[in-house]
């Protein structure tokens, strides 16, 4: 048993490929074959045209920091030891935004618009979370 106590994702059939890719340290998102829209979070229908014709594609893992907050108080009791930590929204190069943590960067050096790169953190034997770090 893992002693990891923070909330974990519970993948379902549609989201499993995302977490499987993360485990291989790859970032995959969906792409709509009907209208070309890049899609995140995982869906069974395109967010624009509602087509069910979606495929998974690997993406660069590059993006920019869209917004962030430095949690000075834990947003969940299990994060208490991590304070201060950075909760962030990253805008991927391909377009979609993703919720994440910014790591490998002192909180006082975080700036909106900074280039970031996906960074994979194996938090349990089953789950690898997609975090981001500054892209030099």
């Amino acid at each position, binding site marked *: 048993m893992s002693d990891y106590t923070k909330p974990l994702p519970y993948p379902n059939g549609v989201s499993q490929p995302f977490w499987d890719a993360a485990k291989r340290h790859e970032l995959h998102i969906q792409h709509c074959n009907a209208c070309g829209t890049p899609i995140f979070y995982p869906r069974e229908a395109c967010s624009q045209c509602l087509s069910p014709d979606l495929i998974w594609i690997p993406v660069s893992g590059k993006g920019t920091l869209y917004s*962030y907050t430095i949690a000075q108080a834990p947003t969940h009791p299990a994060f208490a030891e991590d304070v201060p930590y950075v909760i962030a929204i990253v805008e991927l190069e391909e377009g979609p935004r993703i919720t994440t943590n910014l790591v490998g960067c002192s909180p006082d050096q975080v700036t909106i618009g900074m280039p970031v790169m996906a960074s994979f953190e194996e938090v349990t034997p089953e789950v690898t979370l997609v975090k981001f770090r500054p892209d030099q």
Partner: protein
Amino acid sequence: MSIKGKAAISGFAEMAPQKGAGDITPLGIIANMAREAIADAGLEKNDIDGLLTGWALSDYSVLFPSVVADYLQIQPKYFNQVELGGASAAGMVWRAAAAIAAGMCNTVLCVLGDRRARARQMPPFPSIEAEFDAPYGLIAANPGYALIAQRHKHEYGTTAEQMAKVAVDQRKSACKNPSALFGSKEIEIDDVLNSRMIVDPLHLLEIVSPCTGGGAFIVTSTERAKDSPNKPVVLLGAGEAGGHSSITHARSLTTSLVKPAAEAAFRMSEATPQDMDFVQPYDCYTITVIVSLEDAGFCEKGEGGRFVEEHDLSYSGDFPCNTHGGQLSFGQPGLAGGMSHVIEGARQLMGRGGERQLKDASIGYVNGNGGIMAEQCSLVLSV
């Protein structure tokens, strides 16, 4: 068919928020508020033939409208739960008006109450946010609004002092509201900026405090409302907007759904933001007020920080905003937090504002906001 002018708020009741859980259940609060609001409108329980309510976090269950109807022993011809988070109370006003205008019922009790206590069971979190937000600590409202505030600072240069000013001015009004949870002492901008940083850039005094409380109001036809002991507060305009759940996937972090909601409300009312004698915008955080004032059209986009800096938002100021102190000083009793803005709007228009009564208040703007700026309902009310 427009509902403009068809229905009015004819009475209300409001519980003074309590910091602790208190020795009362949410249903007990709802019953107290129902009794007082019915009496305030000059009605009997049997006059109530419509019911709108919303879940209590501390007594969450399915089929809550029937639970409330049973507890009050009323037999509504129209009843439902309004599930719009903090926008639920504002959403009740036009839903009640629409049901009345459609002939489904005559008089609707709108009631919410909640207790600051651990729940037997909690409402489940949306599954997509549980999977893609919660593992990173984006949980509940605080960090979501911090992400909005940080982006607003980045795009428009909004300052910490400007955000703090919202809490300072609203506190001045709270000091004239005997019911306010934090109404004993005025605060300065430095008090806000020196309060504990919770989720940067939001300090403790920029964040609502959960509490026990509740409120109710009665909506009836404008014609029937004339028999009420109170001046009828007529619904002139309403507008609603939604479209995201997680703030990460909102179309914009800084231009909110208040914009289409307010535009629709003002269009129906045929009034403009400049016509308003006061505003009661939902204020779960200081940044919420700044974004809402911009999107409702009281200032240009991005000018909200400067606007609150240049205007006195207190009851005695040139731009009265949340004259009950706002939730920031009044307290947030669950969904009933959003009821405080509706009730204060009605109170001012009825001329029952006591020491904080505005002179010449004949028309005002109320906004309800739920989730992370995800549910918006704007109202224009008038006497």
